[in-house]
């Protein structure tokens, strides 16, 4: 449901502040709206999140405001990026010459069989970060062709990196494999007779302009408001409440915190983080979307086909998991599924496409089908009901569930923030029936692309390859 969690409110609050108050500072009620993700610095309130998302949705806010649908317009942005991510998964797989039916099923799996679906309807950074990763990868794929105007792809890679920093601080690390891929694509190493020839295309240097411009603007924003070009949001005093004009915080408000990006990650968190993010019933990737486990088979076949790209894609997944397993809060607060691993879900979907393409066995697709069904069922639960699932340690004292059982209870009681259901279907269907209709529709769609489309595609390919009789 919109605004049920503070990260959404915080980002929307900043958009409001920019649009209405023409400032990045949060005042009065707007500041309260952002609690408890509110930062305090020298008498002023700020969102603790980087301003990227709030700026990105600003045009939508302004357009939507004209027709009194500002909030809907803003919340459509993550959905747009979610759709773009699905398209990118398809395009990337096609670049790797994977059959269209398998490429499409991979896109569908990402969209509907992972918990990323819940975050396509919320104002979080995950789909945007995923877009930056996938598009960055795609741009480098295109850049490598060195066709006419290929430098534009280089510009876009740098632009992506800069935007990534402004969207979320860890993106500077998460997008690093893309930049390494870009760098290695700009190198050519040849052995000509007995000499070693190393060629670096300078386009990688020229195209840094967008990064410098955005980097400068972001640094200037930090400097203007916080006196430091490189200040990160976590260095603001975190406010938990405002009472009678006084801020309430768990930190010493007389001292400005001095934290650095790496300080957010701690080696001692890794064991619990890995367990929580991968297999736990609280947020486990393989618990919520077991279909992702089969993607590992696709890594082997992808590696045989495209070594460098596979290394980059696996590095992206590894870095994503590594960073957030070392993060103090792998649960992502109150959330549905492992939201920090949404970028990995997209990449694993790519590998799934590879798995289907290389294995091509009907039995493999049949075996994978129950995994898909379960994953879709769980993902739809989250998308339709709530993302407010607390970590176990908070849920037990409150006497509430900490797995998708909570979502089931919401379903049973008809609680949903779905605009479509509340506006069009509420009077005709119970929420559970609505869930069932969507679920069956998706399963049918998946079955068509998993079982029927490959057969048709194979027949078409066979007919194309047959010599034409004169």
């Amino acid at each position, binding site marked *: 449901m919109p605004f049920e969690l503070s990260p959404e409110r915080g980002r929307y609050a900043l958009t409001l502040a920019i649009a209405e108050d023409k400032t990045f500072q949060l005042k009065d009620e707007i500041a309260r709206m952002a609690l408890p993700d509110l930062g305090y610095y020298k008498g002023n309130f700020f969102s603790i999140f980087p301003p990227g998302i709030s700026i990105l949705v600003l045009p939508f806010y302004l357009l939507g405001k004209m027709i009194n649908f500002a909030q809907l317009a803003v919340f459509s942005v993550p959905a747009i990026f979610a759709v773009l991510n699905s398209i990118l998964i398809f395009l990337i797989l096609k670049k790797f010459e994977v059959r269209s039916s398998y490429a499409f099923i991979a896109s569908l799996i990402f969209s509907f069989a992972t918990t990323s679906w819940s975050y396509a309807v919320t104002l979080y950074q995950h789909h945007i970060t995923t877009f930056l990763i996938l598009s960055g990868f795609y741009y480098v794929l295109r850049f490598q062709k060195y066709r006419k105007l290929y430098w534009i792809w280089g510009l876009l890679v740098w632009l992506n990196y800069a935007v990534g920093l402004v969207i979320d601080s860890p993106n500077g690390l998460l997008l690093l494999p893309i930049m390494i891929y870009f760098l290695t694509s700009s190198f050519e190493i040849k052995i*000509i007779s007995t000499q070693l020839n*190393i*060629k670096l295309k*300078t386009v990688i240097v020229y195209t840094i302009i967008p990064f410098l411009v955005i980097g400068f603007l972001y640094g200037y924003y930090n400097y203007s408001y916080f006196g430091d070009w490189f200040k990160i949001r976590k260095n603001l005093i975190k406010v938990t409440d405002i009472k009678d004009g006084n801020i309430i915080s768990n930190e010493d408000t007389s001292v400005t915190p001095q934290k650095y990006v790496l300080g957010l*990650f701690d*080696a001692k968190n890794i*064991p619990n983080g890995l367990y929580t993010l991968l297999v736990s019933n609280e947020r486990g990737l393989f618990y919520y979307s077991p279909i992702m486990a089969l993607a590992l088979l696709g890594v082997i076949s992808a*590696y045989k086909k495209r070594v460098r790209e596979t290394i980059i894609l696996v*590095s992206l997944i590894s870095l994503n998991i*590594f960073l957030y397993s070392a993060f103090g809060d792998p649960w992502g607060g109150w959330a549905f599924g492992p939201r920090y691993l949404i970028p990995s879900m997209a990449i694993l979907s790519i590998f799934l496409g590879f798995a289907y393409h290389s294995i091509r066995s009907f039995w493999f697709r049949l075996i994978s089908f129950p995994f898909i069904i379960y994953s879709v069922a769980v993902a739809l639960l989250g998308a339709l009901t709530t993302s407010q699932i607390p970590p176990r340690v908070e849920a037990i004292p409150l006497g509430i569930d900490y797995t998708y059982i909570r979502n089931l209870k919401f379903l049973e009681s008809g609680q949903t923030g779905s605009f479509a259901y509340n506006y069009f279907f509420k009077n005709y269907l119970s929420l559970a029936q609505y869930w069932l209709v969507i679920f069956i529709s998706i399963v049918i769609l998946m079955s068509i692309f998993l079982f029927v489309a490959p057969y048709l595609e194979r027949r078409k390919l066979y007919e194309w390859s047959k010599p034409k009789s004169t």
Partner: protein
Amino acid sequence: MNGVNQNQLKVSPGAVEITIGRITLEKISTWFASLNVMAIVAFFASVLSGFFWIYFSSRGYNLTYNDAMSHLDIARRVVEGVKPGLAQLGSVWLPLPHILMLPTIWNDFFWHSGLSGGIPSMISYVLACIFTYKSIRLLGGTEFGALIGTAVVALNTNFLYLQTTALTEPLFLGTFILATYYLIRWAKTQDILSLVIAAFFILLTGLTRYDGWFLLVFALFAVFLSTYFKNGWKKAEGTTVLFGTLASLGVIVWFVWNLVIFGNPLYFATSEFSAGAQQERMYAAGVLLTKGDILFSLKTYFFSMIDNIGVYIFFFGLIGWVYFMVKNKNIYLRAAGAVLLAPMVFNILSLYLGQSALFLPETMGNSWFNVRYGIVVLPWAAICIGFLVSTRNLLVKILIPAIILLEIGLSFSSHYSITIVDGLVGASQKNVTLIGSEINQYAGKDNGLILASVASHDAILFSSGLPMRRFIHEGTGKLWMDSLQNPDQYAQYIIMRSGDGSDSVSRAMMKLESFPIKYRMVYKGDFADFYERISFPPQQ
């Protein structure tokens, strides 16, 4: 000939092009080949060792463990005390670490700084790094793989800390890796001298920690079975006897030592001071949850391993081990690979049998005790990772080292070392600085003897900074026995834990009616109390 060494740098708007000619390439290649990588490893390991000794000792961290202080005191009592001599090496703890401290322990600075115990540990650390590198190379690992495996050992924050202390784990790791290297050498070459040297180092492990005894049995089986399957009974018998005789010498000597000094060859295992006795008390108190519970023992030791070496390193080590065992058709190498697991198996069995105790936050809530036991699997992980990373598969070659180096980097940047945590706030430490300085203040002015149980309060003795000759303890023979009966005749001071009978002195004093009349408490500490004789009898 003109073209063969044309080094060129071409800069154009579209590209920067560097051409390196053949002769230059050959020079670079020759230079790399001439590098003595092992010497470089030894150099960097030595620098790291020395740097971290300075770093931790300047903060007093190398002396936070009670056991570290006890080891230093044991060695000191051999050279200085009321009754110095080799018998002071005692029983429960194996003797090699203390013997290695003897050359320096007589010096007060080496004793009280902990350097006397640090030197063998640091040398073991450097040897561990060198022989990890050599082991991986010997197994056919590439230079790169060997360096990654060495980095796993050299940059482990727990090992870097432990090698500054007088604890026994670093010496065990050093001798274990040496034994492993020579076993691998024997496996590859069937050279008997290598087998003999391996046996020698296993002998040394057996004189360092009891893990070495299990290693001995494991290695005996490995040597016997591999030789039997390859060459039949006769050769297996001969090889095993040769290996076993030397390797088990340390164990035999220890039994004989216990028989001669304490009158019971099993004194180390059955005395009231033994680990077994200590664990029995813990079991009676209901805190030894691993005893009899194999799953909980596995879980506990699993967390100890990943806390000590890192979770990614553990899992890559496991994958590497499986890869090693599958890829190597040589049965001798497989045997050597199996031997690498011996410390892991030993520790799990010890927990299950109730012979050791291990507390971790993951299994026991907010408590730490003996968490360092998991460090002994470091050689296994390092060698297996080095072997794995030597594969031609680019994905493995790039990804695994990157993740490992990230994990190591994060350990450094987050200053995380669970063995330091145990040493600072866990049950492996007692902050006895305060009582130590109080004792020094009271008793430092004169030469009166102090009655104390070293089994319970060795750390306090160490902290007091007073010479060993001031103390009457279990190792002083008749003087100790007489002092327990008539303390006022011998001891001007007493250190004991009052009232609960948890140490042998307090148990004895509780039986003496004259004790409260003859002694008064001058300091009440957290872990023990300090008593002074009210009026000392004249010397006779």
